[in-house]
């Protein structure tokens, strides 16, 4: 059985690691790219899937879209460690 962690889940973990776990800590795609050294196009692609799955919440902040984990997103990340 393949148990490889999907790419969007890696991004979810990185968002958790860099602290985007609540509304006031939301980050823009540009900021996420700086933190994670990922291409913005790749971040956009995976974020869309994470938003659709309910693991990431998009908000509008200072004129740009920002993102943070939802409670379900936090729980999903933590299952990796428990």
């Amino acid at each position: 059985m393949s148990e490889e962690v999907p790419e969007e889940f890696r991004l979810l973990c990185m968002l958790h690691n860099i602290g985007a776990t609540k509304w006031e800590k939301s980050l823009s795609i540009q900021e996420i790219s700086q933190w994670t050294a990922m291409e913005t196009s790749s971040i956009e692609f995976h974020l869309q899937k994470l938003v659709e799955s309910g693991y990431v919440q998009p908000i509008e902040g200072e004129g740009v879209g920002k993102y943070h984990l939802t409670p379900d997103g936090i729980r999903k990340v933590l299952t990796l460690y428990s």
Partner: protein
Amino acid sequence: MKICMLTWEYPPRVVGGIARHCEGLAKAIAHEGHEVYIFTLDFPGAPDYEEVDGVKIYRTVTELGHPNFLTWALLFNHFLEKRLGQVSQQVKFDIIHVHDWLTAPAGISSKYRLGKPMVLTVHSTEVGRAQGIHNPDSFAIDGMEWWATYEASKVIVTSSSMKGELCGHFHLPADKIEVISNAIELTKYNISIDRQSVRSRYGVGPHEKLVLCVGRLVPQKGIEYLIHAVPSISWRHPEARFIIVGEGWLKGHLEYLAQTTGHGWKIRFTGFIPDSEVIALMTSADVLVIPSIYEPFGIVALEGMAAGVPVVASQVGGLAEVVEHDRTGILVYPRNPESIAWGVDRILSDPGHARWLTENAREMIQKTYSWEAIAKKTVKVYKEVGG
């Protein structure tokens, strides 16, 4: 006594069984007249301090970003220790109780700073969860688990199987380990629900059979083996519908696997749902399957029994101690879809026997698994170590 309890999860931050265990234990100890202070991590919507049912709960924010999980764990321990240090200026703790390695660094340093004994509850081990030590992170976690058992005055585990695991893997002396089982709050399950309305919310018709599975979607829960069993179960019971409750990093893979069985449309993944809804589903199900390959205790079996649903569980770890085969539930071989299908068939084909099992199970948990009894045993351990 003034008890300082450290745990990385406490409701509403619920990841696995530790949150519910700590909540049940803390409330019961507080009810016995002791003061319980929980130090845990923050969660969206939860206050940084509150008192619930006599338990004082301090939630700590990890203020710094972190490149990986282990660094994060060490960082949040620093912030937990800081919060504990602030509170300990006003409160003279008698004992420090740590749950799993995740909060052990804060517990150990507080033990030395406050000069108070530390008790550790090991809920599971890395070698068990990961079924071996396969990478550098696992190696480090395994080391921290051993270190925590070494520093603790007494180690509590929830099953004899877990005691055996610690004696074997960490070479702990058997008399350092106390087996105190998990428990559940039975009153939460004495609810009156409209079974049909719950089932219809999840698309299960009145003449269909609801096969329920509740657990984190991670390899140790063995959910893939239940999915592999779906064709055999469906062949014997075409009316069976499968609901899998829980969240986890393996979800995408399991959803894909479900589609490959040819019965994907019968299998529904709900994701995380609140406790009240889990209880409603358990109360409405025809059978609860627990296909774990590693389970130090298996509290979900007790929850199912309390809800009155017949339980089919793998014969592993604590599950094999909680479920008495063909008296309080059905035990099946782990990693074996045919055995799971056999167990489910045994329940669905004989409703009279299923009912008898649930009656026995409920009687057994009332006698053995109350938080009141578990709290008394835990306080006895605190007193033994000089708390």
